[in-house]
């Protein structure tokens, strides 16, 4: 196809570089510097999608971030991205895009039947209709709505692109490089301030690129170019294009998304696709400009109806005609500027001005160019389905209530201007209390809450001279405050044409007998009639009206619709707009990619990985690892073709019959020193600690203040005032904070220091009937006999020249020891244990066998100490001292905690001794009882008992004390299982605890 709507010359594009691209499978050409939108319009393509609700044809409405319609699915370098605005996407070689919201194709769309049914799809339709019957929701309504609605499709592939985060500090952050941004940046930079100037688009200059002005004897664009090139040379200035400041957070932190590679066919090697900047700025100058708002009229969503400023931008920046028979519909002078541009390029526009007799320099110029101007005229309705073909126009009475006779005039586009809305999003996000400015019918920033100021059009200042003056001054003053320099910049001579006052007119009344849809929100298909219904139904707050009708809730956040919506509500409610108020502006200003938010923290970089000093040994010996918090722990050591179940059974069995060794480095370790150490332990543990002798360990349980078990572990008295505490892997950090809390805030009088030593010690648990024989070989000079090192005893030994701590503690129910050495010697220790263990048939065992061993002997762990259980529930009530107070003791007297039928830990065995019991299953009395079947308890942990060679589980069961011997059912709706079981003691192995003491 030819670019039949491209002018012979003009625009800021590079006509020497032709670029080919595809839209909906068809090949087109554009030029370097085009957006997808400008290239499509150049090729005469105006139908780009279907609307969200009624599936009406959609074209282009804007030329940038305000675009509500032209959303496409983008394909780039084998990846796809949904919801890209065609007006923002720069053209690159090989770009492919497809329409969204249409099925089967954009030209023939089944959903458009909604358009014929629109009388049945009013505001709140979804709320009202799909509520009943309830069972229809999942099966019928939701799948249908999902298929018919929804924008683009997210890729399910792993995103290969790299996204980065950057943290930056500056004196002044300036958001937007239009006249106010350039002027303020320039004067601040001259004072030596550290300035960041951010521009959302690829080109700097904002409206200076399209307006006919003269600054210091240069055109607007020339002036912008010279300022930018000077700023770029200054070491204290960072100038960024394709960078949108989208969020203003507390303490003057702003976040900016820099699109580094989105405009390229593929990301350059070692470059990120996007970079997110977290910027802390001493002062923020918001120079985000303003967005033209439409006038509302019948069928104003027809492709070809667009903002007049967008039409001008397509002409001046891209050399593209949005139409060859343009109709300009305006209530202010901006429409004239667009018409004049058309005329200059040999196209005859017609201007419909809602004003009766406006006079200004711009209007004078249009008249001198013989442009057809019709005053007190409005567009009643656009005609044409997939593209504007003509317009019904009429004269309007002075009170703007009555329409004259309808005339039809031919046109292929309607360029609308309903005046300008300041972009106050960032100011509002910062906490600024915005105020309504009657002169411009829009909200402007009011009193600042943080260090921000808004300049130029974003502040409702629409003349260039005033904007520049104010911006030079603000930039100078704010930077002077910071740098104490003052290098005044001379103010350039400004030539601009004066405008006449705009007309407050914003919505064309319906002609008698016609029921045209007049859209307010173009992306969410919200029409005037929808707001009227919402108000009739009693919705008053603008926030409620918004949610009920979805006005302004689309991805464009109502950039072109909010104010007209407010005008309508205030008109019907007979209130002034400021009394209605506006809805909250929330970041991001415009959608940003999830990838940019996540940055580099993906996959294994999402959290640090902690490895024990013995990790490489585990790797070499076929360990299969599992994540335990941020630790990587061996789950089992694979031999041959073994699976998890077979391997863990073998490893656990070997512990019960011979000896095994397990890496327990990950256990939390806290070193406690000081004369009051015993007193601290006595207060935080439930049992007594004052009389623990040196060289002895004791098991202890800690509670939270509410009586719930916080953690368990052993603590050993190393010397008079020195203790070594262990915690579970998961709770290590919490326990340390818990101790620090009491020491610093509650008992500052206690003379104790606590510090984490988790990473200072490597730990190996040696367990099994032959563990003592092995230990004797490892420590030939120590007395490790049952008398020399009894159960819960402690020794310091010499492991072939390495200092070691030996604890006789057991987590497996077997005779067992834990050996600790300094981390650097961990691997040495491990290799010695394996070497000397050979004659005792030692095998390493992983977390799976570790669990099996602790479950079948009924030792509680994280799945029982789950933040919901008290000591009694875990059969730990024997550890509650009656003689002393401790943290959480008072809570244990609560009624529910002392109930006769309080839940308690039990063992569970399937009656068939074969069926494995899924963890998390429920225990019930009657498997056939009607729902909701009363739940008596839940399975906390399951294993295959190697001692009894059948499945065994632990459960927390109501009245568990009296349930031993009972027959119940385990039900797992998730796995669709019902298993008859018998309740047994939780101590399934060695209930008297003889082995650990042997």
């Amino acid at each position, binding site marked *: 196809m030819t670019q039949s709507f491209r002018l012979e010359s003009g625009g800021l594009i590079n006509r020497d570089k032709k670029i080919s691209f595809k839209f909906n499978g068809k090949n087109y050409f554009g030029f370097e510097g085009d957006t997808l939108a400008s290239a499509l319009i150049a090729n005469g393509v105006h139908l780009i999608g279907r609307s969200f609700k009624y599936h009406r044809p959609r074209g282009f409405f804007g030329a940038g971030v305000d675009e509500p319609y032209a959303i496409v699915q983008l394909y780039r370098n084998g990846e796809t991205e949904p919801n890209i605005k065609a007006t923002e996407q720069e053209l690159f070689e090989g770009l492919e895009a497809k329409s969204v919201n249409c099925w089967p194709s954009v030209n023939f769309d089944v959903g458009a039947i909604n358009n014929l049914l629109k009388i049945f799809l009013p505001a709140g339709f979804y709320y009202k209709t799909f509520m009943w019957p309830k069972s229809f929701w999942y099966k019928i309504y939701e799948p249908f709505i999902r298929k018919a609605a929804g924008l683009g499709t997210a890729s399910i592939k792993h995103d290969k692109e790299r996204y980065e985060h950057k943290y930056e500090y500056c004196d002044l952050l300036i958001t937007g490089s239009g006249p106010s941004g350039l002027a303020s940046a320039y004067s601040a930079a001259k004072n030596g301030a550290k300035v960041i100037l951010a521009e959302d688009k690829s080109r700097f200059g904002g409206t200076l690129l399209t307006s006919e002005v003269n600054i210091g004897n240069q055109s607007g664009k020339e002036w912008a170019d010279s300022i930018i090139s000077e700023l770029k040379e200054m070491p204290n200035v960072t100038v960024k294009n394709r960078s949108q400041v989208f969020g203003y957070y*507390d303490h003057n932190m702003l976040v900016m998304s820099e699109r580094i590679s989105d405009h390229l066919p593929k990301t350059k090697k070692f470059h990120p696709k996007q970079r997110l900047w977290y910027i802390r700025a001493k002062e923020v100058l918001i120079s985000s400009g303003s967005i033209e708002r439409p006038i509302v009229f019948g069928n104003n969503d027809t492709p070809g109806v667009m903002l007049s400023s967008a039409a001008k931008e397509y002409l001046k920046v891209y050399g593209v005609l949005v139409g060859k028979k343009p109709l300009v519909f305006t209530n202010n002078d901006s429409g004239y500027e667009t018409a004049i541009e058309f005329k200059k390029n040999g196209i005859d526009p017609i201007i419909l001005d809602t004003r009766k007799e406006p006079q200004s320099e711009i209007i004078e110029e249009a008249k001198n160019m013989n442009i057809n101007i019709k005053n007190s005229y409005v567009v009643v309705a656009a005609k044409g389905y997939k593209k504007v073909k003509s317009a019904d126009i009429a004269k309007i009475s002075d009170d703007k209530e009555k329409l004259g006779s309808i005339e039809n005039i031919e046109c292929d586009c309607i360029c609308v201007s309903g005046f300008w809305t300041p972009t106050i999003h960032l100011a509002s996000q910062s*906490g600024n209390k915005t105020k309504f400015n009657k002169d411009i019918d829009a909200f402007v920033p009011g009193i600042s*809450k943080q260090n921000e100021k808004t300049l130029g059009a974003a502040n409702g200042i629409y003349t260039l001279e005033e904007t520049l003056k104010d911006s030079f001054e603000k930039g100078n003053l704010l930077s002077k405050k910071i740098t104490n320099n003052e290098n005044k910049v001379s103010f350039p001579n400004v030539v601009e044409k004066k405008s006449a006052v705009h007309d407050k007119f914003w919505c064309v009344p319906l002609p008698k007998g016609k029921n045209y849809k007049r859209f307010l929100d173009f992306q969410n298909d919200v029409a005037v009639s929808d707001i009227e219904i919402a108000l009739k139904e009693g919705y008053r707050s603008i926030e409620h009206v918004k949610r009920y009708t979805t006005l302004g809730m689309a991805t464009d956040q109502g950039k072109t619709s909010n104010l007209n919506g407010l005008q309508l509500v205030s008109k019907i409610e007979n209130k002034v707009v400021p009394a209605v108020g506006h809805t909250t502006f929330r970041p991001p200003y415009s959608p940003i990619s999830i990838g940019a938010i996540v940055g580099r923290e993906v996959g294994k970089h999402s959290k640090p990985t902690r490895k024990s000093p013995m990790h490489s040994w585990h790797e070499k010996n076929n360990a299969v690892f599992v994540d335990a918090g941020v630790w990587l722990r061996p789950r089992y050591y694979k031999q041959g073709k073994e699976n998890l179940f077979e391997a863990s059974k073998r490893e656990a069995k070997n512990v019960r019959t011979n000896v095994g060794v397990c890496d327990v480095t990950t256990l939390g370790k806290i070193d406690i020193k000081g004369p009051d150490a015993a007193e601290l332990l006595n*207060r935080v543990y439930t049992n007594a600690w004052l009389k623990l002798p040196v060289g002895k360990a004791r098991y202890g349980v800690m509670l939270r*203040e*509410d009586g719930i078990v916080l953690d368990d572990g052993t603590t050993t008295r190393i010397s008079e005032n020195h203790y070594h505490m262990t915690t579970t892997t998961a709770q290590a950090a919490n326990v340390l904070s818990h101790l620090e809390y009491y020491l*610093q*805030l509650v008992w500052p009088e206690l003379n104790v220091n606590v510090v984490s030593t988790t990473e200072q010690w490597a730990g190996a648990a040696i367990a099994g009937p032959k563990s003592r024989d092995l230990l004797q070989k490892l420590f030939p000079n120590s007395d490790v006999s049952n008398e020399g090192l009894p159960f819960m005893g402690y020794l310091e030994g010499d492991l072939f020249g390495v200092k070691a701590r030996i604890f006789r503690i057991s987590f497996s129910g077997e005779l067992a020891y834990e050996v600790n050495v300094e981390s650097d010697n961990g691997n040495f220790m491990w290799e010695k244990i394996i070497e000397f263990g050979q004659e005792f048939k030692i095998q390493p065992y992983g977390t799976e066998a570790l669990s099996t061993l602790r479950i079948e002997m009924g030792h509680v762990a994280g799945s029982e100490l789950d933040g919901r259980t008290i000591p009694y529930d875990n059969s730990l009530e024997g550890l509650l001292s009656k003689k002393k107070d*401790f943290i959480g003791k*008072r809570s244990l007297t609560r009624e529910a905690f002392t109930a006769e039928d309080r839940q308690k830990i039990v063992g569970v065995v399937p009656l068939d001794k074969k069926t494995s019991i899924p963890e998390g299953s429920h225990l019930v009395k009657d498997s056939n009882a009607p729902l909701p079947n009363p739940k008596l308890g839940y399975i906390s942990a399951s294993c295959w008992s190697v001692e009894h060679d059948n499945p065994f589980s632990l459960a927390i069961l109501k009245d568990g004390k009296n349930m031993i011997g009972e027959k119940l059912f385990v039900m797992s709706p998730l796995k669709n299982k019902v298993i008859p079981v018998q309740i047994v003691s939780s101590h399934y192995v060695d209930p008297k605890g003889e082995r650990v003491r042997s």
Partner: protein
Amino acid sequence: MRSQNEFSYGGDASIKRPELGKDVSDKDWDNFVYNRKSLRGKHWELWQHVSGCRQWIKVERDTSTHEIFNTLKANEEISL
């Protein structure tokens, strides 16, 4: 100035733990363990510098604006 993500929140700083070993009524105990005012506005809070010096500190913060007015060390008393 340190980044907020180095700190961990510890709740209302004005709560005093009843002394160990002293009798506490059910009501007082409930107030200590459970009952907190969910204030909008200025609030004295505990924060711990977990990824730093491990000190618990008292911070007077506005719960709606996150503005910080005052900080105290663990052993300094709040004067309301």
